[in-house]
């Protein structure tokens, strides 16, 4: 049976990748490890953004806010109690939370759940909106979250941020979280609920007429998205070791926007590809920030700031010329992979003909 074959192949792939992450963790230098980790974390958040923007068709720009909630939850609850007085030196930590310490995995889940809760609260007023209104309202909420974090010093240490978060630069750990996220979202999209999301994306009115409760499903998608953004944010916090409100400016969301646009809105495998290309690419584009000597002459174009010009130009070029990204709403499936391996040239020809 095809399903069984796919399941086995997927399991094998996961095991192989986990082995690779084991190898990466012990063999690669910390710089590469960092980039791998960042790729994985960005993949989680890209996937989460794709649930709302790609599958449910609700254009939300609130990812940075949900990440902030996750990152702060992890930050607040994992800093060792004895170090807290030192971190919260301006305004003492609220006694209500001052003695609660959690292991990272628990803090991650709590962070995700809190983000989902906030998404639920936000969802009621916001999800009635459509298109650009929704985009601007979610962006607004992400800013409100950030402003609240800046001002609620006794919980979040305000602008001073939280330092001394136990670092988690372990590729295996982050890989496992990413794999769980991927499998979960893939399973969700392939369930009846995932199809309901797609129906809403395609046509809200028809979806509703088919008995799909719009508010319930949009809210569900929004919450799931926030949950994983919270988890991703938490991992981001542990990777940095310190968080402060300025990490979560709404421009952070643009990174994930590029990921899902490049990968294809509505494609899970596309989001993974997008995350890897964007993260590694941004790191790679760093050469644009450094003076470049080509054939003995200095090229004056290359100086700090050029990389971000390239980044934004890429985002635009992607939308203008390549609106569906790499994958569109298609997925890389085992059947396609096998067909490709059997006949690489024929595979593309057939696809070309179909278009």
């Amino acid at each position: 049976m095809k399903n069984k074959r796919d399941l086995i192949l997927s399991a094998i792939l996961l095991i192989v990748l986990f082995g690779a992450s084991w190898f990466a963790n012990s063999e690669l230098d910390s710089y590469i490890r960092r980039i791998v980790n960042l790729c994985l974390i960005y993949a989680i958040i890209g996937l989460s953004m794709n649930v709302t923007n790609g599958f449910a068709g609700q254009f939300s720009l609130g990812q940075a806010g949900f990440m902030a909630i996750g990152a702060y939850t992890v930050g607040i609850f994992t800093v060792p109690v004895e170090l807290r007085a030192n971190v919260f030196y301006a305004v003492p930590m609220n006694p209500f939370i001052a003695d609660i310490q959690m292991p990272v995995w628990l803090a991650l889940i709590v962070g995700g759940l809190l983000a989902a809760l906030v998404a639920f609260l936000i969802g009621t007023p916001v999800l009635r909106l459509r298109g650009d209104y929704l985009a601007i309202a979610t962006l607004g909420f992400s800013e409100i979250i950030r402003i609240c974090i800046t001002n609620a010093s006794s919980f979040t240490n305000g602008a001073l941020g939280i330092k001394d978060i136990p670092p988690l630069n372990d590729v295996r750990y982050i890989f496992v979280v990413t794999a769980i996220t991927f499998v979960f979202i893939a399973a969700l999209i392939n369930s009846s609920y995932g199809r309901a999301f797609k129906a809403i994306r395609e046509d809200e009115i028809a979806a509703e007429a088919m008995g799909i409760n719009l508010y319930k499903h949009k809210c569900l998608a929004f919450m799931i998205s926030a949950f994983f953004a919270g988890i991703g944010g938490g991992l981001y916090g542990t990777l940095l070791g310190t968080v402060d409100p300025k990490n979560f400016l709404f421009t952070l969301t643009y990174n994930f926007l590029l990921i899902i646009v490049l990968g294809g809105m509505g494609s899970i495998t596309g989001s993974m590809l997008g995350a890897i290309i964007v993260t590694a690419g941004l790191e790679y584009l760093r050469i644009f920030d450094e003076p470049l000597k080509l054939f003995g002459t200095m090229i004056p174009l290359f100086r700090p700031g050029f990389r971000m010009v390239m980044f934004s130009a890429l985002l635009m070029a992607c939308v203008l010329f390549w609106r569906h990204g790499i994958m569109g709403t298609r997925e890389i499936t085992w059947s396609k992979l096998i067909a490709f391996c059997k006949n690489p040239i024929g595979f593309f020809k057939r696809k070309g003909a179909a278009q």
Partner: protein
Amino acid sequence: MKKMMSVILASALAVGLLTGCGGDTKKDDAKSNVIKIGVFLPLTGDNAAGGELELRGIKLANKLHPEVLGKKVELVIADNKSDKAEAASVAARLIERDKVKVLLGSYGSSLSMAAGNIVKNSKVPAIGTSCTNPQVTANNDFYFRACFIDPFQGTVMANYAFKNGARKVAIIQEVSNDYAVGLAKFFKDAFIKLAGPDSIIEVANYQTGDKDFSAILTNIKAMHPDAIFAPGNFTESALLIKQARQLGIKAPFLGGDTWETQEFINVGGADVEGVAFSTAFDREKATTAEAKKFLDEYVKEYKGEPSALSALAYDAYLIAIDGIKRANSTDSVKIRDAIATTKDMEGVTGKTTLDKNGDPIKGAVIKTVRDGKFKYIDFVDVK
């Protein structure tokens, strides 16, 4: 169109590969006659102005002290974009990729803190240039710095305010800026100790990037403070002071070392005349020989008066060179141990001795703006 895109992408990648590989030809460094020092500074983004000034100081120091242990010192400069995530990955890159022995930077305490764990874990010493937050070196044996810290700076300004007759002070802080919030707290603590619990009459907040301060200023005007302590970025601070003067607030403004940039005067114009702020260095207090050298060379190189930021960055480089010299080794851990015992190292901002946290014990200069120029008014030594 699709084809064109892929061609462009492919060629971009190819160019990248070519240039990227070019940089990777590094051999075992024990025998090499180059010592690499990494510099990570904000060269773009909000803090670019400060980062650029510090880079000048470091470059100048490198020009005047190009060698140590008979080896050439090579600077590897990286931009951290005023962004913490970037700062962390840039620091990791400098250490892992470029194999730097010492790291210098950064402007902005939060950027330095983002690199804290990386420095600690990879056991490479880092020397902060102008990151004044006490948290940078706390709990981190590998982080040192060339500048004084905020508790000291806050106390200095509180004393200054008190000495000049201020009894009721209002604080306007850039609430989203860690530097401003930290400094405001230490100022407040010190001032309350001097003038009593009711002496801070108001703490108002604004966000980075705000342009309009008329509402908080109108509130504060009605309270008639003797002085206003307003630590923050220079752009926002200059606009704030401008609007305060425009609203008819006559009280003097006090601030921190971030104000010492030409942009502060450019934006603030005549309205920032008479403000007072603490900083690390001034020509008037240029007592050491190194300082004279620095002043001469700086004026020659950059055609302008150096700021304290450049001086501190210059000193950070010197601390690193001094450490390497005394360690007589290129081993990062040995260099770290040598830096930790830095004593009376003669730099631009005076003699530097590092305490057990890795913070220097040195005094502060108080400056003002007069006739469109920064002018020295006072020096406060460590008690």
